[in-house]
């Protein structure tokens, strides 16, 4: 079962420091080509640790939308 929530990072604001990568217990985040952080929604458990550490405050934890819930069988 997937978690109710998941994190997502704002590409435009992210400074690609990688702080979030290091705190994620699920290794769900990667810094794409040194440009921005990307959260793998499928791995993310919505714990919010990444959002807490991000110095640029660009990660928000969201409820999984209707589209995603269909995936959870």
């Amino acid at each position, binding site marked *: 079962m997937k978690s109710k929530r998941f994190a997502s990072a704002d590409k435009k604001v992210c*400074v690609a*420091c990688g*702080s979030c990568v290091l705190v994620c217990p699920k290794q769900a985040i990667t*810094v794409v*080509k*040194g*440009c921005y952080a990307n959260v793998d929604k499928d791995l993310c458990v919505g714990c919010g640790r990444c959002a807490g550490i991000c*110095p*640029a*405050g660009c990660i928000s934890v969201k409820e999984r939308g209707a589209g995603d819930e269909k995936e959870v069988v």
Partner: protein
Amino acid sequence: MKKKWYDYLWIYEIVYFSLGFFNILFAWLGMIDFLLPLCLAVFGGNKWFCNRLCGRGQLYTKLGSQMKCSRNKSTPKWMYSTWFRYGFLLFFLAMFGNMVFQTYLVGAGARSLREAIKLFWTFRIPWGWTYTAGTVPDWVAQYSFGFYSLMLTSLLLGFVVMGLYKPRTWCTFCPMGTMTQGICKLRAGKDKEE
């Protein structure tokens, strides 16, 4: 996660700054922190340095997160805005250029060696005990004092914002971080066009 050798680079960071209190010539080692991230960005198109290798980032995390020396409050918006990040980068590069110019003047014999470091580009602190005159050409020593000044100033600035905001708030406007991300973005943009 299992610890890798590079998770201990924060120790190197402490060693680096300590050495500067004994022999200023060790300041040259800091060039690694300057050239390696750039090489990784230019040739590898990544921020592997910031993401894994930077001892400074690790030190801020250690002190800020683990030792709770950070208030862990949100970084003010302007501090991670594009104009401030690139503005600070320009300012830093200008200061770096000035430092190189001073080194050149000393090398050319137009100015004598000053055995002092300058903090926050303002406060001159005598630092003569770390250098015995004549050990190396004057310009080599001048560069050491200048470079160490920049490194120490930025480390201290980083500590201030670590205390006030998030452990790694410095990383939002760190000139190396901004520069490497900028290079990576340029590279990624090019990849897309091809």
